[in-house]
């Protein structure tokens, strides 16, 4: 219970995601004393307590509870509880949440994991996407070099900023654009920002990379960020490439097209009454071609992915869908039923027993 109290208070100040990572999904809660590099565990974290809980439950099953008709319910309850905890652990590890943005009339075949970033270099000679290389966030550290055997250049990562924010223009003294010598990045107003854990805020990873050509010559320094939406391109040995940092893409083996968005506010208010996306679903092989309505409280489930209507951007005409992949989705249902049956059994037995005693 102490863990829950600490976790809830932490969430109020630091946001839900941080609370999840630091308090509930860790072994210990650490205290970082100012000025030192120490990490002192001060309170058991979620995993630790859950571990003890499961051990406790198992031990109680083995040693404490005598199996009989009377205690069958209790047995079920404890088994159910173990599986709930186990299920939560599994879902923490195996489930992924991402966001799909679809503009009205357009389609998409991927979603974005907005809390992760990736750097992508694509060979776009002849106007087509011939090949590409994707470097995940873990490789984007200062001093690292990104290379690919196919291509006659590499990228030196000079500086990495965990978060950035748009500022008025590139003349702004805080702007990082002065670090760039080439590309769109040299002309945007982008400043460093502190890493945020607040609910609803995203960190936009930003990096300053140097492009080094086949003979080791520098082809300039480029500023890359998820906030920069335009393509930054360069040409080496007669081939054209594009360079960008973007939120991590997750592909689906099918496409979703947004035919229409039906949003209704309660009349005369800004309170959403119903939001629904009318989409068309088709797979690349051409096997599936059907329509579906995704509305709040009624998601679309297809091929292991569930699409929930999350919101709508009026200005851009973009429907925001939450995409969840959770292979362990059935576990909480299964465990809850176990516990419920166990509880009902005990409750009913208790009632009957009480009535018999009275008579």
């Amino acid at each position: 219970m102490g863990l829950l109290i600490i976790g809830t208070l932490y969430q109020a100040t630091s946001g839900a995601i941080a609370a999840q990572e630091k308090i509930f999904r860790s072994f210990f809660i650490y205290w970082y004393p100012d000025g030192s590099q120490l990490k002192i565990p001060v309170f058991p974290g979620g995993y630790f307590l859950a571990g003890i809980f499961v051990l406790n439950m198992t031990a109680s099953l083995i040693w404490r509870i005598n199996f009989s008709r009377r205690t069958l319910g209790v047995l079920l309850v404890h088994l159910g509880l173990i599986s709930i905890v186990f299920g939560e652990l599994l879902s923490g590890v195996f489930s992924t949440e991402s966001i799909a943005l679809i503009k009205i009339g357009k389609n998409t075949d991927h979603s974005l994991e907005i809390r992760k970033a990736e750097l992508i270099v694509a060979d776009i000679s002849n106007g087509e996407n011939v090949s590409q290389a994707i470097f995940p966030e873990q490789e984007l550290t200062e001093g690292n070099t990104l290379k690919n055997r196919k291509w006659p250049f590499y990228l030196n990562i000079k500086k990495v900023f965990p978060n950035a924010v748009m500022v008025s223009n590139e003349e702004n003294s805080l702007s990082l654009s002065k670090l760039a010598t080439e590309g769109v990045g040299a002309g945007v107003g982008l400043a460093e920002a502190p890493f945020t854990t607040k609910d609803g805020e995203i960190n936009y990873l930003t990096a300053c990379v140097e492009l080094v050509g086949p003979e080791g010559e520098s082809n300039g320094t480029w500023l890359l960020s998820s906030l920069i939406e335009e393509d930054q391109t360069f040409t080496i040995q007669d081939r054209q490439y594009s360079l960008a940092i973007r939120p991590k893409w997750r592909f689906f083996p099918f496409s979703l097209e947004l035919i229409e968005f039906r949003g209704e506010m309660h009349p005369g208010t800004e309170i959403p009454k119903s939001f629904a996306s009318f989409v068309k679903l088709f797979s690349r092989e051409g096997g599936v071609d059907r329509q579906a309505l995704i509305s709040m409280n009624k998601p679309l489930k297809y091929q292991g992915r569930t699409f929930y209507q999350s919101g709508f951007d009026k200005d851009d005409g973009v429907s925001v869908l939450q995409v969840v992949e959770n292979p362990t989705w059935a576990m909480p249902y299964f465990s809850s039923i176990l516990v419920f049956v166990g509880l009902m059994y005990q409750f009913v037995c208790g009632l009957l027993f009480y009535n018999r005693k009275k008579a």
Partner: protein
Amino acid sequence: MKIIFFITILLLSGAHLQAEEISSTERVFAIDSFRRIPVQHEGRIKPLDTVARSSLLLLHGSQSLNHQGNKLSPSQWLLEVFMNPKSAKVVKLIRVDNHDLQGMIGGEIKNRVYYSMAELEPLSRDIFDQYSKAMVIEENRRDSFQKAAIVLWKQMATFLSLSNSLWVSGIENVPQELNAFEREVANKSLFSVGGDSKQLEWFKQRYQFLAEAAFFNVLYPEGGNKLRPKEVSSNSDKWLNMGEGLLAGTHGTSLHPGIKTFARMISVYQKKDVPAFNKVVNDYLGAFKSVFPSVNRRINFEIIYNDLQPFFVSAIIYVLVILCSIFSWMIWPRTLKALALSLIIIGFIIHSGGLVSRMIIEGRPPVTNLFSSVIFVGWGAVAISLVLERILQHCMGCIIGAVIGALSMIVALHMVGTGDTMEVMRAVLDSNFWLSTHVVTITLGYSSTFLAGGLAALYIIRGLLTKTLNKETKEKLAKMVYGIVCFSTLLTFVGTVLGGVWADQSWGRFWGWDPKENGALMIILWNVFILHAKLGGFVRERGLMVMAVFGNIVTGVSWFGVNMLGTGLHAYGFMAEGAFPLAMFVLSQLLIMCLGGLPKHMWRSFKPSS
């Protein structure tokens, strides 16, 4: 005996109803008809009476107003605001409690709580300044002055909005203006060259202001609800407000008849022509009734609900039950017990009536927001306590139910000051199925935890202070508390799981470590601790009682505390003002727990009789 009490009380309630009726003679403005005029506000169709009551509560802190020796009902006040803003602005209306803010406003009388709009309007600039500064700061970091400044600005804005809802405030001769407007529009369509005349431009700007300032939309769709004429709620169609209706007229379409009606209404009121006013209002209501008969029925039902004030009445009855129960232990046991039982049953019926009325008016399951959850917890507790009374006797069930019922009503009645409690549901929560399963189960779980804690508190107080906690009563109470804790564990567990299932169906996540979820988990855990402690022999009777009382604290904090934190998906009833009463409640329960821990020989009931 019980039957006599029953009938007497019913008759008294009937008398209470009679007193509310206002006679509609030829010499008095028909307020009772006026307040039935339907308007669309915050997505819901409601009578002007509801608008009047909730606005008056927001501005004045109470549902009646004293002005120059007269007591004004909310609708009478609202009528003045619409028709006679000059006099309405002089009324000492707006309630300001914050001392610093009072100082800023000035005024000769110290510690005055009510201020008139006439006094406040000159200070608008300063007040808006403070409001803007306060709004920039995060909600939970504002101090009391900043919060009060925000409230004051909202109160003033509400008044101004209301006074500009039927026409531009302060208008002297509406029909004259309307005629001039119609002439301009006719001229424009005749000579359609060039832009609008200056006069027409003036009208357009004026009515644009009206369109933006209106508090509610009053012009109903004339054709009725074309698709579903018998539809109970026409909530899907947007009504026009007065300004929008007038602006629509500039495009050449004929003016909505409602505009002319209200123009005449204002004009005859200002001329103090009572019969003409009454006729306009009644004709208007008749026209509405023919277009939207079922909405009209609902509006009239809402008026009855507003007048009866079921929750306020049942709160009073519950308090009477508490008094009767306590006195029944001292004198006239049989009479007072019968009276207490009759009263609580009647209180419960009225309470249930209020709940059912809300369900009918909203078209929803009983719990949709924090206000209705509080009402429902009280209802659940009283319902279960009626069963308990049958088992425990001696008014023990009655008093617990009445205490929880009365307390929950008091909490709820404090929450009405922020507007209409029957708000519309936002899309993400809009699922009648889950609202009736998850929310109802978990609030019943809260009820039962409070009930167990209440019984335990009773055990402790009776045992310490009186000799009446004999062996038989002790054992009965202990079994009851244990039984209720079992029941509560089941309910809160099922309720929480249903919440998880709803979340999984809605946004793909069964458990999100949201503060409310954590709170519910804490209640389950504590209930389970109690059961394990008793079964495992870690505590006996007294310990069980003390733990059950702690359950009150866990439930109270988990229910309200998370709303005060303001984060997470469940922060839909943010109320920082509740922090102090919640703290007091927690302290009171801690006190009872300490009393429960006192050594046995200090308990009057356990002392050996000498």
